[in-house]
């Protein structure tokens, strides 16, 4: 029994070498665990302390492998951000193509302008379509709903005084601006992503104008 078990084990080892799997790293069974996954798995177990890190990937959701792979290749050229390159597994997650396509189409439909929204201290990113808001009041209301907080009203002189939160955005030039500084239409076309700042950093912003 013992000999056949060890022979069997050898067979298994040999087979593993030729195993055709596109499995992801992430368990003790695999040797090469890229840094990003280690970071991710340790970060996710203490979700409230997650540092604010916005990965530099494309903003639109589900794309098929071809375009996604090329986008990933582009992103790995960015310095600073850890490369989000992840081999896309065929047929995983198990979702029908028409669903994937539909989600993607809806995000592209009617020229939706999707931007990521993050909030300091929150583990979840959101994506919103700026096109569906008529102006700043609706956007702010929506953000308040989404993150369950009060941002209050914008004033040119004092920003969002009285609130612990300040909505900011990164514009086309890479500058971080306070939401509300520019006319709405200009904002919609120049906003790359949103970040809701919290605490003293936030309170300081309004007065810097």
């Amino acid at each position: 029994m013992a000999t056949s078990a060890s022979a069997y084990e050898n067979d298994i080892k040999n087979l593993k070498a030729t195993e055709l799997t596109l499995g992801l790293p992430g368990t003790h069974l695999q040797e090469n665990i890229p840094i990003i996954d280690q970071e991710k798995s340790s970060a996710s177990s203490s979700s409230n302390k997650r540092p604010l890190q916005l990965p530099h990937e494309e903003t639109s959701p589900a794309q098929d492998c071809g375009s996604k792979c090329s986008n990933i290749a582009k992103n790995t050229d960015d310095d600073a951000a850890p490369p989000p390159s992840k081999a896309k597994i065929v047929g995983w997650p198990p979702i029908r193509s028409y669903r994937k396509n539909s989600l993607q189409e809806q995000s592209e439909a009617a020229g939706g302008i999707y931007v990521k929204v993050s909030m300091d201290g929150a583990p979840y990113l959101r994506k919103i379509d700026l096109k569906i808001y008529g102006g700043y009041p609706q956007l702010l209301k929506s953000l308040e709903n989404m993150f369950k907080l009060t941002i209050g009203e914008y004033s040119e002189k004092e920003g969002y005084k009285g609130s612990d939160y300040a909505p900011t955005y990164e514009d086309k030039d890479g500058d971080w601006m306070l939401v509300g500084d520019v006319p709405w239409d200009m904002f919609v076309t120049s906003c790359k992503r949103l970040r809701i700042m919290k605490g003293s950093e936030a309170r300081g912003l309004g007065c810097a104008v």
Partner: protein
Amino acid sequence: MKKAAYSFPEEVLEHVFSFIVSDKDRSSISLVCKSWYEIERWCRRKVFVGNCYAVSPPILIKRFPELRSVTLKGKPHFADFNLVPEGWGGFACPWIRAMAGAYPWLEEIRLKRMVVSDESLEIIAKSFRNFKVLVLSSCEGFTTEGLAAIAANCRNLRELDLRESEVEDLSGRWLSDFPDSYTSLESLNISCLGNEVNLLALERLVSRCPNLKTLRLNRAVPLDRLPNLLRGAPQLAELGTGAYTSEMRPDVFSNLAEAFAGCKQLKTLSGFWDVLPSYLPAVYPICSQLISLNLSYATVQSPDLIKLVSLCEKLQKLWVLDYIEDDGLEVLAASCKDLRELRVFPSDPFGLEPNVALTEQGLVSVSEGCPKLQSVLYFCRQMSNAALNTIARNRPNLTRFRLCIIEPRSPDYLTLQPLDDGFGAIVEHCKDLRRLSLSGLLTDRVFEYIGTYGKKLEMLSVAFAGDSDLGLHHVLSGCDNLRKLEIRDCPFGDKALLANAAKLETMRSLWMSSCSVSFGACKVLGQKMPRLNVEVMDESGPPDSRPESSPVEKLYVYRTVAGPRLDMPGFVWTMDDDSALRIS
């Protein structure tokens, strides 16, 4: 005892048999004795063929000469996720041709995951005078021209359902091919069509068919046309909207709300592409009568979903995107005490980080609050053994449990342990579990639990799990009622497969891809088991151009009385006695 069977006239037996409708029972009847077999086969009207290659058209027709309804399934389930290459098979044509000749009075054809050509549709349209029901579920290969043939010729058509099929949409004109005199439509599902249909023709069709109960539109039907359609069919029970967006105008809104309110029988809603949240309240008046709601295309946030769902007190089935979040599921659990089925789909399946606040907690809430919950499909990004344990103890009445933790091999996020115990609790407590899909970090131990407790399990889906053949062996040797097993990217190999070869004849099919099954073992299996078709798929070339110990890309094994199939494409090889000849 002599000739006791003949003391009942045949007609009486036939009459008695006519009350037996379940396939299983009819099969049992036919095994009682030869005369019952004979009587039964002549009066069988409905047949379900779970695998179109398990039997052939001539065999079917020879045994059942008087069928009125045939259901056929083609490709394996994993075809839904692009794991089955194009051209694999599942061609409907030979079946349709054969049935056209043998069953002039055929009324119903239902096909799933099959390749259907326009030619086949034309044959259907011209061959069956009393044709009533055509359901093409997840099919492909036909165009709107084929649909035009059906519309133009099937005078008694009641149901045309194209659910989730891939149709080459050449023109929306086909709908006009229903003659003006045609009024028998009861169910129409065109939700999968990409282009606009002729809206005027649609409106006229809908309003002249008084028995229309189900209408599922496609995305291209604009929202402002919906009120007219609804007014033309106030008796509708099931509606799938088109795009649910329009310029926000109060008159459009009130028109829509009024039209919805007029549909007093409406119980099922779906569609909801491109939802503009401010239009959702138009359905509020009918929410209290809804039993089924499919919001799985509605990209709206949790607050809007919560408002809607909290009004649906009679809801039994909800399909929704993970935008509903844990908060929304908590409201669902509190509001919808009659819930039987929940499916939560991912809004950003390929994103590297969570984009919504949906965790295992949402599912736990629903399991606590909904006593009738039986069927679950849940995509999420974290799970724990504790949560699975709670769910299992809360809901021992679960019959279908499919969990997809998006990152393969994710451990229990609290303990970093495998999720063996959690899934073990599911199979142990849910004694009537028929369908299970696993995910997360799993060792052979979970399969030991499944083999021990999963006695009623009929379908199991496994991905990126297990350590060794022992895992597969536990399942094949322990799950007495297993019919379909589909496995991908697991270290399962030859030993378990060959040791349980006989089991495979008691199942409909086994799929294994990216596992460790060697070509040699496949050959052995094929030779040992003549009543199984052992098909090896390899797109990189003939398997015998590599060593016998090389693992095959994909393996599909199924029982059959029809022998090896003859329509295999170049990348599929069948292993049987003649396999040596076939490959060379």
